[in-house]
């Protein structure tokens, strides 16, 4: 679970603070001007330039009506006054906004600055400092506008007073090797841990730096992206049916990975995961992973398998169908069997309202004959489930051993093992390869099994 607070708000401002060797914590640059007032900064400077133990950690605080998220960073070197440069590049947001999704960007930016400083004295040299305001402005504008940002910084080069970088000094100390520029942006080299958390996050942080052929100027490129965080999707099971709820999947066909592309045509809203896997000739677990990914991006929704023996019950959501003209239109369009004529809404409503305990879809079909009413019952159920007008009633077989002490366990052990109240009929059918009828016959005949509907 993520912190769920407020909405995602834009970044109000970005500032760079440093520990000045005489004046203490100090705002060096900010954009826009006045995004953090002097009074507030003084009150919270202890969190912006904190004690050493809190350095190199994301620090977010929410006081005095602003929420500030920063990454206090430190470069230790005898070349600085007080032997260290402590700086913090922080984002200022509304106090009610979520900021957790900005944290990777803040951290990366801070580490990037650290490297630039080590390379080129970006933070300490006047020439570098002159470029910081533009950098801050670009990051702010781009991240707010498009959620990603590419910063290109030319190192050294034309700037006259280039001071030897920290790194070069390290290199030159150990011998007379000719000074050789090496880029050490380790965000480039590190197998970024974010990348492998899941392929959906692959674009989180991927810094690239490239070197121009000319040895005097070096360009460094930084990519920043704000990735929204959603709660983790549900666990996908064999018997779940993925239903596409967005057209976008197809419009961006080549956007998905190969496996997803392979299974997409088989997601027809009626086949369950195991069936899709068999049809697409893909491993079950891979299909599950792909569906999970699609779930995360809200492209599909999971529904239970449709069967005529299923029982659905109407929920309070049916009120929306009664009141919402848009939903009514959509419903009539979706459930109609032939495009030529639309089914009558009150018939649809009546069928939905008749879905109750003990009435299977088969029963409904016999009573109402939806074919004649131009209603496709499968689509009707699917529409009801996706719009939460109805819900599926699951059957949970339960093994209740009789009081009789001479009772001997019967031979249906495989089924009995699954009658613990945790597994519903769908699951058991899928696992044991039984049809619904076979299973319900077995359960019916067994006096020790009670069935719970919920």
């Amino acid at each position: 679970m993520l912190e769920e607070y407020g909405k995602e708000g834009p970044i109000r401002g970005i500032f760079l603070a440093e520990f000045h060797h005489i004046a203490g914590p100090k705002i060096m640059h900010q954009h826009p001007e006045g995004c953090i007032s002097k009074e507030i900064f003084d009150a919270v400077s202890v969190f912006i330039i904190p004690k050493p133990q809190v350095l190199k950690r994301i620090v977010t605080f929410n006081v005095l009506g602003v929420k500030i998220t920063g990454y206090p960073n430190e470069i230790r070197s005898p070349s600085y006054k007080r032997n260290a440069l402590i700086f913090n590049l922080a984002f200022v947001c509304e106090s009610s906004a979520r900021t957790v999704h900005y944290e990777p960007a803040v951290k990366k930016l801070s580490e990037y600055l650290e490297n630039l400083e080590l390379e080129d004295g970006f933070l300490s040299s006047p020439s570098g400092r002159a470029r910081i305001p533009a950098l801050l402005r670009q990051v702010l504008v781009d991240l707010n506008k498009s959620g990603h940002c590419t910063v290109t910084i030319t190192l050294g080069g034309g700037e006259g007073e280039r001071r030897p970088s920290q790194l070069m000094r390290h290199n030159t100390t150990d011998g007379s090797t000719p000074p050789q520029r090496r880029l050490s942006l380790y965000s480039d080299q590190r197998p970024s841990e974010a990348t492998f958390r899941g392929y959906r996050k692959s674009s989180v942080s991927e810094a690239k730096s490239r070197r121009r052929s000319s040895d005097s100027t070096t360009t460094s490129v930084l990519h920043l992206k704000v990735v929204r965080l959603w709660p983790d999707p549900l666990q996908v099971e064999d018997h779940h049916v993925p239903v596409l709820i967005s057209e976008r999947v197809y419009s961006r066909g080549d956007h998905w990975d190969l496996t997803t592309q392979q299974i997409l045509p088989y997601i027809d809203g009626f086949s369950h995961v195991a069936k899709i896997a068999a049809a697409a000739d893909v491993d079950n677990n891979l299909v599950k992973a792909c569906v999970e990914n699609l779930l995360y991006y809200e492209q599909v929704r999971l529904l239970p398998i449709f069967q005529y023996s299923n029982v659905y019950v109407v929920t309070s959501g049916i009120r929306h169908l009664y009141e919402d003209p848009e939903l009514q239109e959509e419903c009539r369009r979706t459930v109609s069997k032939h495009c030529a004529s639309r089914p009558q809404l009150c018939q649809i409503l009546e069928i939905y309202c008749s879905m109750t305990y003990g009435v299977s879809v088969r029963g409904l079909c016999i009573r109402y004959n939806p074919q004649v009413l131009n209603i496709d019952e499968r689509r009707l159920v699917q529409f009801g489930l996706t719009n939460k007008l109805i819900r599926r009633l699951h059957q949970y077989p339960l093994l209740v051993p009789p009081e009789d002490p001479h009772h001997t366990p019967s031979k249906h052990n495989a089924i009995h093992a699954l009658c613990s109240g945790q597994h519903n009929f769908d699951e058991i059918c899928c696992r044991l390869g039984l049809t619904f009828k076979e299973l319900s016959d077995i359960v019916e005949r067994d006096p020790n099994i009670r069935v719970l509907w919920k």
Partner: protein
Amino acid sequence: MDVDPLCIIIVKNGSRGDRLLFRYPYSDEVTLETKIKDKRPTPYSLITEENIQTPPEPHTSNISNGKLVGFHDKTLSNLFAVKSELSDSKFELKVNDVRFVGHPLRLNPTLVRVPTQGKRKPSTIILVNIVFALKATINHDVVNCYHDLSKRLGIALRHEEYRCQFLSSQAKIMLAAHDEATQLPEDGQVSPFQLILDRSLLAQHLKQAYDELCGSGIVQLRLNNWIEVSFCLPQKVHRSLATGLPVDCEGLLKGLKALKPYHTFLLLVERAELLHSLSPDASPALWRLLHVEESHLTPFFTLAADADLTLTQVFMLVGHLVYWGKATIIYPVCSTNVYVLSPHAPTVINSQLADTFRDEFPGASLHVMLADFSLPTSLSDKCHPINSPIQQQEQVQQILWLLKHGLLQQLHTYVYLAPTLTLDTDNSRGSSREIGGTGPLGSHGTSSPASTSIPTPTVHEPPPLSQEPASLTSQQPPGHHPDITQDALHRAAVQLSHPASESDLGSVCSDERSPSPGVTLGTTPELSVHHQLDSLLSLAEKEMVMKVEAAQNPEDLKLFAKLCVYFRGHHHLEEIMYRANLRRSTLLHLIEKFRPVLITCQHPDDSITLFSYTK
């Protein structure tokens, strides 16, 4: 989600700088480890060059085993002893994966009552901050609750400081213990916090608060044996209830706003136990309310009359009980109630519940009971007339038990007015609503000329929305019934008579509470009925209604006109009965007569089930 705190910390700031007074839980290993780290690096030690090429160590979590680790006392006190600008407001700080929340309070030394004898110097503490360390991933709702607790503790502490210098004296003890611990020889290492815990009352209070938060989620302590601080973490309390569903304050409060006079509450704990746990200065109104017998059978308006309270007061008291996880909201238990297995009911065979149930009701099996309720079952179905009253009583008790544990939900019947024509002729939409919108609105109820022998509760229905482009209803937003002013309700409640006759079901009486013998209809001119229908229905709807056979009977039509505002799916039968002061049989009869234009369906009442879970 785990909502337990990681740590509770108290920090002071004063003339001698900031200081961490106490933290709990503390662990000896960590303090030892920090001790070693604390040693000043000698100026002669070699500064080893860090290899820049190797990536830095990824930052490890600051949480280990549910405890806060990796922060020095000094670091924490530096962070929490905030500048005075930040005092007296919420303090929220997230470092790495730990979120700290507190409420720094400024103390005014001049207000401290210094004992006249003795020459003690006035207190030097100017700020105190009680901070909870939480996991950063915890829901914001929970964080706000912890802030509230911090504030309560802080204010109580400030009061005690002003009254009798409680904080100063405790701080003295704590600081002395810190000094003592540092002076001890290395091998006889004792954690200063252990010493503090042994000696300081405040430290024991904080430990108690931490333990209770991790335990039940309810904190009840008497600070300095003087001020009571009580706090409830609903997210935890409600999760430990049998329903085990997550709740948040927002959902709870929203649900409590939807309370209706015909609901009632069901205590989740034993009445005697609850009365015992009340503090001596609890509201006498609560005592009165809790002393009403069989409260699960009586709706709020009767309860209010019995306890001699206003309905608003009853709502507020019940709101408290629900928030603290002591009660839940139900429709009063009566023979016509239909119950069914709740979708959230745990069905695991070996659950603890089954054992508890067997202990409570020997000879009965929970699972058989649940299987029986897999299909909707009403209380009257359960209770055969052949059964002895004792058996019936037992069955009611079993149902109450199931309700208490959230295994059952009640189904209500909702009625929709859906004549074939209006729903389907696209061109009849919109245009017809106009008439409905401009008609004499709100004529329903208030101006009802029907002379009933019992005063009808005055119902102010919001007028149907006019000019609805294509909608087929005159809907009100769900849950939004600025219906009856509380006073009117109360009046109505007092005036409504009690159940006319106790049926043979004993206390499980029928819900037909009003005899309403004189719903004499038909005394009004037909015109007003038609007016009423015009104002509430669209043209097409009215047309279809008039085609129904029963519409020829003026009395039926009159009643239908009176009730059709409730046939939009927002009101269940019980609510209609309450609002229109009708018998169930009359209502069912009417619905049956107008069956061609009505659709009924059954689902639970969301307004009261809502706060048992959130989406």
